[in-house]
């Protein structure tokens, strides 16, 4: 019964979304306040209906109601509660309901918190949000309905892919959707601004917190996915340039660009048309990600069960949403252009270069991801593009970006003093050179270590430059001032934190790529593997049982110079419903590097097991970096000029120009 109510609520949400998508738009065009005012209640009601539909579906998963087709296909009574719930979005239909729920909740948030928005801008923004919602609810109801009943109901369900039965992956999709879908708000604001024909710094101030929030979620979502791949897939890898990973990474790159260009609009009213374009592109790429995962047109381990009918529908949605907004852009962008002029060497100039590098990087990743498709369409044969391409094109674009990220914040708005900025970065340059030399001295001079030394040097450079920039803000003639430290706006701290995170991430990527070591050997009880100063001794293997799996658990004693370090227990889990094996690597971390042990198959009759040991230096830095970046976003989000109601009243600029 609840399921039917959920189904009904979703159908009702479609009607509400249609009203939300049309009446306020007409009202804004005709100056009819009553029609415009319909946007807010419609957005709130739509989100309540979607949330109810989502809750009804979740309930069916929790109580294992196998008369619902999605539950029968994806759930099982023996699953732990967490995975019964995460099973809701572990499949295409349910994940779409989550998607639409997040979308409508963002719409409701704009309705509730956008009290200061000009009436027409708010009406139009919510209308665009409503139209996106209407499109996707239609998609769910007609091609991907999770509320369909199965008759007769099976006694037991098929279960969830065991790889997905993991806490990391339980929260990875919701995070990612919060990011993807969060960019819809920037998109709706951009389309609304094009309709209004007006973009100013107030507009940027409204858009930025939403972009920032979406960016934080996407950053953490991608990080969570990478972390999961690292500890669950058992290869010790953390990024594979898989099409679906790329599909989330490309909007992250353009979203990062958007975040920075919106600052220029806010502070200087320049780059307006470009910022609008980025907002449209970023959400379009999020939609593209949704399409690629669900249509079956790309080969990926992540792909949902594909159905061409769905693909056609999503493609049509894409064509309308993206094609429509770009057409609007082509006609209306000249109306929003103009604004402050600036010298190439200035804060704006630096942010512009940041944008160019980020969008170029996004384009190259997109090209690599779609190249198999393009090649196939042009009859160049079936092929796949792998990590070598991405590393070869991505790294040369990121290295200058990281270096410039150190300099940009030290330049003044409008016209900067490059020589002065570099003068202040002498210490940072010195430290970077030191890192370069130390890396080579410690590891020897060969091709890999030269590249690694370069990576470490720019990581140290960015870290030191970010600290220098912070110091230059809080230090006056009289030395460090507590007053200045406290008064520095949160957005400044957010930036510093995120840039430090970037530096830590670069160090992590560099170290983890260059110095990963692995050994694979067949070990009998008592035998050991030596790697990176550790001695990993295999003691025994035994069978253990989990709630819905049986596992082989190996026990390994790890020592270093004869001193006990840890006992590690990797597992190989055999799930029966559905039948699949998963590896549970045992990871011992020092906080700087990880020791990673995986137990494989039995080898021969004498109790020997294939054992893989990886030494993964600097991998923890990846997670620290991602967390610092996310934290930076949150701190910046808490800046008082973003706070509800403050948007209009705060008129004085809160950024202090660097003292000079």
């Amino acid at each position, binding site marked *: 019964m609840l399921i039917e109510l959920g189904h009904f609520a979703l159908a009702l949400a479609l009607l509400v979304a249609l009203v939300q998508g049309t009446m306020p738009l007409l009202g804004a065009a005709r100056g009819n306040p009553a029609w415009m005012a319909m946007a807010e209640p419609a957005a709130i009601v739509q989100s309540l209906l979607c949330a109810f539909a989502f809750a009804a579906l979740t309930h069916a998963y929790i109580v294992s109601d196998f008369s619902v087709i999605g539950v029968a296909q994806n759930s099982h009574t023996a699953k732990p509660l967490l995975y019964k719930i995460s099973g809701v979005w572990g499949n295409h239909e349910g994940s779409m309901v989550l998607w639409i729920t997040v979308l409508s909740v963002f719409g409701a948030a704009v309705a509730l918190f956008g009290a200061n928005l000009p009436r027409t801008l708010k009406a139009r923004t919510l209308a665009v949000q409503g139209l996106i919602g209407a499109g996707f609810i239609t998609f769910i109801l007609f091609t991907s309905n999770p509320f369909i009943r199965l008759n007769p109901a099976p006694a037991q369900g*098929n279960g969830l892919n065991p790889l997905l039965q993991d806490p990391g992956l339980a929260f990875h999709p919701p995070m990612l959707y919060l990011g993807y879908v969060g960019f819809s708000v920037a998109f709706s604001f951009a389309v609304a601004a094009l309709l209004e024909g007006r973009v100013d710094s107030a507009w940027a101030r409204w858009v930025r917190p939403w972009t920032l929030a979406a960016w934080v979620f996407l950053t953490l979502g991608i990080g969570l996915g990478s972390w999961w791949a690292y500890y669950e897939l058992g290869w010790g890898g953390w990024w594979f340039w898989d099409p679906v990973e790329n599909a989330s990474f490309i909007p992250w790159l353009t979203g990062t660009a958007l975040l920075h260009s919106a600052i220029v609009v806010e502070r200087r009213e*320049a*780059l*307006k*048309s*470009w910022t609008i*374009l980025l907002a*449209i*592109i970023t959400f*379009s790429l999020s939609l593209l990600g949704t*399409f690629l995962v669900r*249509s*079956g*047109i*790309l*080969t990926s381990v992540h*792909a949902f069960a*594909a159905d*061409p009918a769905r*693909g*056609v529908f999503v*493609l049509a949605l*894409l*064509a309308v949403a*993206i*094609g429509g907004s*770009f*057409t609007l*852009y*082509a006609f209306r*962008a*000249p109306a929003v*252009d*103009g*604004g*402050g*002029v*600036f*010298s*190439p*060497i200035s804060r704006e100039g630096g942010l512009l270069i940041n944008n160019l590098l980020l969008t170029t990087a996004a384009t190259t990743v997109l090209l690599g991801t*779609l190249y*198999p*498709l*393009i090649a*196939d*369409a042009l009859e160049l044969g*079936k092929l*796949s593009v792998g990590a070598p391409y991405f590393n070869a094109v991505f790294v040369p674009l990121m290295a200058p970006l990281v270096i410039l990220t150190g300099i940009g914040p030290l330049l003044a708005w409008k016209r900067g003093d490059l020589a002065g900025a570099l003068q202040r970065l002498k210490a940072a340059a010195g430290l970077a050179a030191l890192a370069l030399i130390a890396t080579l001295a410690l590891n020897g001079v060969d091709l890999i270590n030269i590249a690694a030394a370069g990576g470490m040097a720019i990581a140290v450079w960015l870290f030191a430059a970010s600290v220098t920039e912070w110091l230059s803000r809080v230090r006056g003639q009289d030395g460090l001032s507590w007053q200045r430290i406290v008064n520095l706006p949160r957005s400044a701290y957010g930036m510093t934190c995120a840039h430090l995170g970037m530096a830590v991430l670069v160090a992590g990527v560099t170290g983890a790529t260059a110095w990963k070591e692995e050994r694979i050997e067949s070990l009998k009880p008592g035998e050991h593997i030596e790697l990176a100063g550790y001695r990993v001794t295999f003691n025994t293997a035994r069978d253990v049982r989990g709630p819905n799996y049986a596992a082989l658990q190996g026990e390994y004693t790890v020592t270093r110079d004869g001193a006990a370090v840890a006992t590690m227990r990797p597992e190989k889990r055999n799930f*029966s*419903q*559905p*039948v*699949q094996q998963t590896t549970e690597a045992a990871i011992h971390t020092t906080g700087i590097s990880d020791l990673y042990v995986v137990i494989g*198959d039995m080898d021969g009759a004498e109790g020997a097991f294939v054992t893989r040991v990886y030494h993964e230096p600097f991998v923890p830095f990846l997670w620290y970096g991602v967390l610092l970046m996310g934290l930076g976003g949150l701190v910046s989000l808490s800046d008082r000029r973003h706070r509800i109601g403050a948007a209009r009243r705060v008129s004085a600029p809160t950024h202090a120009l660097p003292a000079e």
Partner: protein
Amino acid sequence: MSSPEISAPPKRWPLVVPLVVVIALIALFGKRLADVEGGDDPRLLPTVLLNTPFPEMDLAALPNRAFGGLATTDLKGEVSLVNVWGSWCVACLAEHPLLVALNKEKTVPIHGIAWRDPPEASLKWLAQHGDPYTRVGQDPRSTAAIALGVTGAPETFVVDAQGVIRYKHIGPITPEVWQTKLAPLIAQLKK
């Protein structure tokens, strides 16, 4: 030091560029979707195995069946189907009646690979649901499944008379799959 001031150029044509790119991409995706619908599914194996000889294996028989286990040499001389299945596999049960019916028609021998399945369980399941297989080999340690690149059960390989893999179907065989894909291919291979 003065440097030239820059501002956004007022030219109009660059504004249309994104739209053109989007239209091109949508056309590309549309074509690809049409291909997928037309049967050219990219997921149907980046099959390195397609048109290569069936990998070497010699799998033990299930006890007390008329024909023996499955070895690579058994696949030469006649077009055949090799079906990877297990008594634990729900989707295999869905395709099973079709396999039983096909076996009655005697168009093509169907061999089974009992993947990660205790022999008693396999035999009990076959007794219960019908036994369409000519030969059945046991694959308790996934050696055959790994050699074949099996990602899940059921999967079915079409092997020609020279013992070369000509097609791989992932998932249950439906009557539609049989009529539109497997049957025509088998008829053609038999010529």
